[in-house]
């Protein structure tokens, strides 16, 4: 099995020869792409409201592997509602340690006392390259001082920050846990004073003009997990500067095949653009993270 660091270096190297195999005259065994797809948005463990077919880490990794996904950045569903975040992140780190494809991305809740200690453990003890935030489930906005402080500390530690815009369509949420999508408007202003910060927005369905404003903001990246419409991903890629859009599936809550097909189904993105979305751009978010 390939060591995680090797996978990572493959993933972020540019100019790697790759080919997306033609679908004619080949067997199902040949159906894997020759380059390494990086999924920047998966989660481990149990979704609080439903059992998911792939909520066992081994089953999930097996499925991702079968789809040609060589590396997946994993948050934890437990980090959404649980308050013992240190325990949440410990379990996540343990689950990722022996699964070469998984990169652990710890949860931080800046509304909890001593969250700085959770961040320190993520970076120093677990050596996680980034953190994942759920402002809507944790009850704060992107204007709150605690969020600003968190971005500052994570950036100074060389970590990227993922912010989940949503975890589920508001129309289908549990009646007792109704959570609006995160408002990203304040991020435009904040990023101007946070030199070097790298923030990826997950599970979004952003529209102009805010999408364009965020796209013009250095350090803001986007995943593809809930970008729908047959040409939704190409439209997103064309709306923001190069390098900002990266593949994310939101598996196992969403079916990973769905996100993969959506990237190429319209035939609009050329091969080189597909490569950047599926693999190369993730390297830009990863940056020089020393893990």
């Amino acid at each position, binding site marked *: 099995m390939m060591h995680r660091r090797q996978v990572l270096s493959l993933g972020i190297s540019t100019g790697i020869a790759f080919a997306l195999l033609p679908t004619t005259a080949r067997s199902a065994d040949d159906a894997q792409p020759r380059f390494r797809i990086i999924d920047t948005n998966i989660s481990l463990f149990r979704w609080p409201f439903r059992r998911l077919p792939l909520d066992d880490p081994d089953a999930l990794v097996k499925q991702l592997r079968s789809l040609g996904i060589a590396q997946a950045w994993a948050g934890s569903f437990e980090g959404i509602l649980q308050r013992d975040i240190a325990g949440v992140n410990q379990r996540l780190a343990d689950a990722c340690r022996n699964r070469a494809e998984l990169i652990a991305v710890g949860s931080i809740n800046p509304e909890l006392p001593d969250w700085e200690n959770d961040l320190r453990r993520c970076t120093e003890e677990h050596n996680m390259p980034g953190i994942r935030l759920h402002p809507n489930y944790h009850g704060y906005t992107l204007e709150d001082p605690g969020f600003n402080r968190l971005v500052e500390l994570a950036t100074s530690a060389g970590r990227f920050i993922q912010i989940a815009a949503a975890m589920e369509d508001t129309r289908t949420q549990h009646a007792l846990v109704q959570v609006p999508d995160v408002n990203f408007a304040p991020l435009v202003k904040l990023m101007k004073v946070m030199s070097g910060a790298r923030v990826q927005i997950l599970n979004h369905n952003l529209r102009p003009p805010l999408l364009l404003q965020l796209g013009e903001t250095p350090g803001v990246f986007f995943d593809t997990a809930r970008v729908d419409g047959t040409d939704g991903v190409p439209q997103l890629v064309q709306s923001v500067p190069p390098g900002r859009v990266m593949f994310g599936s939101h598996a196992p809550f969403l*079916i990973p095949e769905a996100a993969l097909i959506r990237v190429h189904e319209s*035939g609009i993105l050329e091969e080189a653009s597909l490569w950047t979305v599926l693999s190369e751009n993730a390297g830009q978010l990863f940056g020089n993270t020393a893990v």
Partner: protein
Amino acid sequence: MIPADIQLGLPLPEQLQGYRIWDSYFTPAYSHPGPDGSSELFTDIERSLPAIRKGQFEKLCYFPHVGTGTTNDAEYEALARSSPEMILKPLKRWPDLLLGMIQLNPHNVPASLDAINRWLRDGPMLGVYFPGGGPGAMTCTHPNFNPLVVRLAELNGVIMQHTWFKTGGKQGPGESTPAELAELSARYPQQKFVCAHGGGEWERGIRAVRNSPNILVETSGFDATAGFIEMAVRELGAERIMFGSHLPSRSLGTELGKVIGADISERDKKLILGENFRNLLRPILKTTE
């Protein structure tokens, strides 16, 4: 390598062909076909073609507005009533690909009955679609549905009802839930009904129609949430599930992904992706032969 040849996440083309995919919920220019009656419809169909080809679809069923008051555009409504050739344009342009089921406005029963006779009795449309929004939306338990369902049953027409269970309640007074469709279906046990979108919040939607054997569930219109198809097969049986693409506003990935990514048998996938819709259409296709 050209992007059209890339098949990431999809089964091989020959496997997709083997499913014989018939899409029961194709939504080009869903709200309005364009001021001339077809331009936006054509644009959206062409926009969908790469995905249609990639998915190896055999047929897609769309829902034309035929002048019963399902748009807010009085000029278009008049044009649709006076120019049936305009309605037929897409079917003539893609005769081997497209099927049609007309949108009805149950607020206007006489106009809807006329449209049923004009487009189903005389062909070539195969059924009707009751929308969940816009001026044609009406909750399907309303008595106005009764004469329409009776006439549709006489003609073997397929009945598709837009449904959603939304957290926080309905967003419009004309919306219908799967529970309300179950109520309507109980009045006509011999007639089949299609519960579009499985109610959106499908865990409740599936339960609401579970005891209504004359209701089939359509699969499109919400995120590719894992476990939907598995629960639907377990609770309803694969024979009561019908694939819809919702292209182009949704995607091949989201909608086909729900079925091909589900942990169900290949036989069940084949039923869901095409066979069930063909079975539903068989009576009216026979009468129009």
